């Protein structure tokens, strides 16, 4: 019996057609994967089911009865719950308070009773959680469990999970899959939205593939394969190697020059004064790209901030250049002055949205456009025009930065940074949120910088990107490097294990801390932590 039937669903956003007439069924007691690339329409379809959007056409039936949802309250009333990628949790509330929010009746709120009820639900589905803990003290995986528990506590029989593994370690992913199987065994239905082929094959009973707003196939999982799913997803037989290089080539075999960036035993605290970096040591040489891979939340943000001068390490040193200038306690202005180009992960925090393109391009180096305090706006404009032309930024110098698209904004930042030929480039999440064209452009520019002799440190949560661009790969886990390998030695599975804290190789090769082929024994690597303590 189908618990959900969606027929002829159409949804437009302006000129974009997100869903172009979709029929979708969900049976009782099944785990159904919804697979497709970014923008295929999977999230939209499920948001319609959850009442966040209203369809322009089509109908939804729950257990045979036609329903109309004007808001998630309607969907919840029908037993449909959604766990999205961004959690809706109040950090200072306990688990019990978060689950009770919006679900209490009457004037009084009894926290203890709520906690007991939550424990009962948790036990029923074997989800391990302490109702009295404050949510902000939970790990990401545990927070996701709270979100799931929220839906289950409201007697949801249909659970929609939108890209749930994006923020989980491989081990947490295993836990999640086990939980999904338990739910399905108890008769619940789970929709699993994903773009990851291996996960879909691992957890689902049926898989529906979407492409460009339409259903292209719907098959039981055991009757399909990664290769055919990949083909359906993109419309052609895809190279089954798990990482795509977008046609960007890397000149293999190049040897890195002298170290231009050295982090020595860097320790740093995060905003909550908890340790975020715990003794990170890494060297990047001239003419190489070192990619730092890892699951979000393992210190990448703090690492990027330390290298930008926005956060001071509590211990350790950061040194740049062959003249070994120390920038450990430098301000952002000093860091830039010492030849470090910074491409931050949050574009919007690196440009002032209401200032013009020309002003944003000039702000990092105002000294050049100043003459005894007065601003030379003509010079600023000319420089802006030159950079706009060189980097293909689709904007004019007097446009406010706010009006630029993500890709153009990134080009602006690249222009600002790379036009000064920095000897060190720090790039954090350089292609996040960009379309294919912009992504190719950005990666090309990073390679260009490398070929010019800069030392490039790239921090990216996109493992494919790290594998595609890096000469050496370092994996960060809980503020330390759990492994550093050359690209040729790296494979996704091994990296995945390192991302979860375990290192394949307890002994590090000499290639690890220094990029050179210098085989002389380096300083004892006993201080280089491998795996968990």
């Amino acid at each position: 019996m189908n618990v959900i039937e969606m027929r002829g669903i159409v949804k437009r956003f302006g000129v974009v057609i997100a869903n172009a007439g979709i029929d979708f069924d969900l049976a009782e007691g099944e785990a159904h994967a919804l697979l497709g690339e970014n923008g295929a329409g999977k999230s939209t379809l499920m948001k319609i089911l959850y009442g966040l959007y209203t369809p322009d056409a089509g109908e939804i039936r729950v257990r045979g009865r036609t329903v109309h949802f004007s808001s998630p309250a309607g969907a919840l009333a029908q037993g449909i719950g959604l766990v999205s990628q961004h959690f809706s949790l109040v950090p200072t509330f306990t688990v019990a308070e978060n689950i009770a929010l919006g679900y209490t009746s009457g004037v009084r709120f009894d926290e203890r009773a709520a906690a007991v009820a939550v424990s009962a639900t948790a036990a029923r589905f074997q989800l391990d959680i302490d109702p009295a803990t404050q949510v902000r003290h939970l790990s990401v995986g545990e927070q996701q469990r709270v979100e799931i528990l929220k839906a289950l506590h409201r007697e949801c029989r249909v659970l929609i999970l939108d890209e749930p593994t994006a923020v989980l370690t491989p081990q947490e992913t295993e836990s999640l899959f086990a939980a999904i199987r338990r739910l399905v065994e108890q008769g619940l239905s789970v929709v699993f939205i994903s773009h990851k082929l291996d996960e879909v094959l691992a957890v689902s009973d049926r898989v529906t593939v979407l492409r460009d707003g339409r259903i292209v196939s719907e098959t039981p999982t055991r009757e399909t394969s990664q290769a055919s799913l990949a083909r359906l997803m993109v419309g052609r037989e895809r190279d089954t190697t798990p990482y795509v290089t977008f046609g960007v080539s890397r000149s293999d075999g190049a040897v890195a020059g002298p170290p231009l960036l050295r982090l020595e035993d860097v320790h740093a605290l995060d905003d909550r004064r908890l340790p975020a970096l715990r003794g990170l040591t890494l060297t990047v040489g001239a003419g190489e790209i070192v990619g730092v891979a890892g699951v979000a939340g393992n210190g990448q943000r703090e690492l990027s901030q330390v290298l930008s001068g926005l956060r001071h390490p509590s211990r350790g040193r950061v040194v740049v250049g062959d003249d070994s200038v120390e920038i450990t306690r430098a301000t952002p202005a000093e860091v830039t002055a010492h030849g470090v180009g910074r491409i931050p992960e949050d574009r919007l925090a690196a440009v002032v949205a209401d200032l013009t393109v020309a002003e944003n391009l000039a702000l990092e180096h105002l000294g050049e456009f100043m003459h005894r305090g007065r601003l030379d706006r003509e010079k600023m404009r000319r420089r802006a025009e030159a950079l706009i032309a060189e980097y293909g930024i689709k904007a004019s110098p007097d446009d406010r930065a706010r009006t630029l698209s993500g890709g153009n904004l990134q080009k602006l930042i690249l222009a600002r940074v790379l036009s000064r030929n920095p000897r060190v480039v720090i790039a954090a999440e350089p292609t996040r949120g960009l379309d294919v064209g912009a992504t190719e452009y950005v990666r090309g520019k990073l390679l260009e910088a490398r070929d010019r002799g800069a030392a490039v440190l790239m921090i990216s949560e996109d493992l494919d990107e790290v594998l595609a661009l890096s000469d050496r790969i370092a994996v960060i886990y809980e503020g330390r490097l759990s492994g550093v390998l050359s690209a040729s030695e790296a494979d996704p599975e091994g990296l995945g294990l390192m991302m979860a804290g375990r290192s394949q190789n307890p002994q590090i090769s000499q290639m690890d801390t220094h990029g050179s082929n210098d085989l002389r024994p380096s300083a004892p690597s006993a201080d280089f932590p491998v795996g968990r303590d």
Partner: protein
Amino acid sequence: MDVVIDLAAATLRVATPLLFAALGEVYAERAGVLNLGIEGTMFIGALTGFLVGYVSQSVWLGLLAAVTVGVLAGALMGLLTVTLGLNQHVSGLGTTLLATGLALFVYRLAFSAPSVQPKSPAFSLLEPPAALGPFASLFKQYGLTYVALLFVPLTWWVLYRTTFGLNLRAVGENPEAADTAGVNVFRVRYAALMIGGALMATGGAFLSLAQLGTFTFGIVAGRGWIAIALVIFGSWHPLKVFGGALLFGALSALQLRLQAEGVAIPYQALLALPYLVTILALAVAGRNTSYPAALLKPYRRE
């Protein structure tokens, strides 16, 4: 000993308007709105209480009218900051300026330039039972003072033991999460502002209706701003805010006492003391972890 009891009694009396105002501000700020309209609300509450009391010759009507005006002032703040999503600082100051201007206008309209200060009926002190002996004078307070004291545990209970309080705190920390959970963020913020406004206006009405039954232009004298400081000082928690109000009440009572005793320090210095201490306290307290995370951010549905 008598001196101590007298000072304690004076402390409670002086702390009453501060307590009303500060508790009112707690509701607003815990829901994520900084209500700088507090000073104006207290002022117009004082004026309304006095004027209606004068016209109707009934303190209770005066008080009721003040509460009503307070609710309206809160609703205005809601319109500006919640519905329109305007900058909270400027909305609050605008509300204070508006309320103050309106109050002055209406007062001048009612009494053009009185040679004799007009008086309204006033609340009187409640006589304590003689059985309390030496402590009797501590309990010689206005009824409203007891009401203010009652609002302390009441506010605690509302915030932590009711659904409304849970929703209010959620809205002040993460309005998106509250919205997703089905809480009507706009309605909760409006409610918080209106309850707060009622309390603030009551604090103002206490100033004009208790003791003297008069109204002067300097009647509020910045107590609204002190209440704002008290809320921060008390980490947005009703019990700690109460402690702060008592502390300031004590300082002010002390100042009045010293002034009466003819101590050589200019009384203005003692008046300024609470403000300076507050600034010091703010510097020391720094950024609290109990800061309602969504304070000052307007909420807009995508």
